[in-house]
């Protein structure tokens, strides 16, 4: 029963996404389409990063590195796979979709493994030290791509064809992945594992005294978070003719942190709101070029002063609505 119901809901969502996708393709200018795509990608980035920074309380500021691994992994495997699939089942939407999704999975796997490699030694560190180490690793990853000749080094990777990387990213797949990752991470957050992650954030010593395998769980959350960034990176890669190491600089990591802080650290719905907010404001501020970083800094300062807990605090949208309109629950003041 459960399975049947879920399949029904999934197909319904799929149909709606497909419909919106068709409409976007037909009537909406490419510029707006791009913002809509980026918003979905940001949601994936923010929800993934929130798992480690918000829920688990281990601050990573190098997630652009994992996004890069996902982007290069997906682009490279996609470019190699596409001709094979086209030979086999013929060019078309099926081959494109398969290429995209296999590429994304390869990217996510590589990003997750990189997360494991980076996380296992560095998650023994706490607070500022962890932040510095993740920042360093993020740069190491970017500079490695900068020197990887077979991936185009600093000029970027554009595949084998002169027209660049295939434009495989569609509205349907961006939002199908965003919704899937949202659901998976939400379920995890509200499970025993999620409670243990939150317990690590609240008091690591007490969590350990309650038999919580703290290091293992931190590495798990970090790797899952890296894998989500990898998916986002893959979707991003197939949106443009080429990807370059400088697409994944430190300021990309900062953008991600802005997303989760604006929405409220530790809140999944907050991450969604923050992801969309950053996609839209980044485009609105495009003409300001590098000054947008100054504006983001100012925005962060204002938020820290006016609403330090972020738009939603650590609560979920459903809780906020319930406490506003629903039955009064014994909710203690925070």
């Amino acid at each position, binding site marked *: 029963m459960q399975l049947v119901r879920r399949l029904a809901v999934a197909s319904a969502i799929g149909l709606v996404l497909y419909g919106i996708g068709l409409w976007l393709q037909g009537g909406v200018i490419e510029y707006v389409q791009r913002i809509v795509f980026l918003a979905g990608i940001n949601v994936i980035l923010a929800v993934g990063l929130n798992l480690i920074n918000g829920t688990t309380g281990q601050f990573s500021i190098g997630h652009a590195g994992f996004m890069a691994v996902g982007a290069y992994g997906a682009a490279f495997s996609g470019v190699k796979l596409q001709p094979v699939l086209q030979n086999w089942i013929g060019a078309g939407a099926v081959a494109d979709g398969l290429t995209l999704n296999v590429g994304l999975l390869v990217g996510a796997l590589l990003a997750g493994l990189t997360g494991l490699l980076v996380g296992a030694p560095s998650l023994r560190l706490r607070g500022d030290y962890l932040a510095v180490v993740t920042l360093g690793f993020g740069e190491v990853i970017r500079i490695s791509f900068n020197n990887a000749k077979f991936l185009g080094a600093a000029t970027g990777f554009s595949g084998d064809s002169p027209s660049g990387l295939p434009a495989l990213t569609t509205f349907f797949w961006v939002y199908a992945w965003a919704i899937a990752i949202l659901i998976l991470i939400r379920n995890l957050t509200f499970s025993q594992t999620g409670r243990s992650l939150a317990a690590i954030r609240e008091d690591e*010593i007490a969590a350990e005294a309650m038999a919580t395998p703290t290091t293992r769980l931190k590495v798990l959350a970090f790797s899952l978070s890296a894998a989500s960034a990898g998916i986002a990176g893959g979707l991003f890669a197939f949106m443009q003719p080429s990807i370059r190491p400088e697409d994944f600089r430190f300021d990309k990591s900062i953008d991600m942190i802005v997303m989760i802080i604006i929405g409220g650290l530790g809140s999944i719905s907050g991450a969604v709101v923050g992801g969309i907010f950053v996609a839209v404001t980044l485009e609105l501020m495009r003409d300001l070029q590098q000054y947008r970083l100054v504006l983001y800094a100012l925005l962060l300062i204002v938020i820290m002063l006016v609403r330090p807990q972020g738009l939603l605090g650590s609560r979920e949208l459903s809780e906020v609505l319930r406490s506003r309109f629903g039955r009064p629950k014994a909710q203690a003041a925070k």
Partner: protein
Amino acid sequence: MSLLSLEKVDKIFGGLSALKQVSLEVPERAIFGLIGPNGAGKTTLFNVITGVYSPDGGVIRFEGQSIGGQSPARIAHRGIARTFQNIRLFRAMTVEENVMVAGHHLHQASVLGAMLRTRAQIADEARLRKRAGELLEIMGLGKHAEDVAGSLPYGSQRRLEIARALMLQPKLLLLDEPAAGMNSQEAGELERQIRFLRDQMGLTIVLVEHNMAVVMSVCEAVHVVDHGETIAHGTPENVKKDPAVLAAYLGKSTEEVA
């Protein structure tokens, strides 16, 4: 047979011997008091037993097996649960969630299962929630399951720490000043609860406590430490009269000094 035994345990911080050759035996199903003046090494002893610190010498045995130097999570898994003197709750989480965190042994679903909300996962959650509710009921916190832990009054926070420790299904429960900050009525309720844990749940309990009324009322055996050394042990009545204990708490009498 003793459930927990310490044999000449040492712990040294820099030049300070926090524990010197401490030996003690906690029999199964005992309520065992550990007392001594401030800074005597009681909490250090708890920290060494639970793996927060590893001992610098001696042997710690739990159920006959050496546990000295193992990780806190490992030791907790073996069946030693504790509370903290300076309350360490997961403050932003609800009372119920605090207890559920300690329920690993009731949890079988994998991480993937949790992400997909499989049937096993849903059953796990229900089992954990039910058990947490029972324990909160025992500790008199049933009505507060949905409250944020950090918002509870002090005495309730201490009882919540006990409920959380119980979720581990421990054999041995270490309570670090459970009655601190409680009034005499709350302390009386705590005494009743501690006896219940031993009599009905079969737990062995070691408590560090400054409230002598509580210690004298619930403990069958008392172990006294001062400056990291054992200075007396025996029944509460005998310990109360022991000259070394009186000296440690009140200072030496004039004849002795002279």
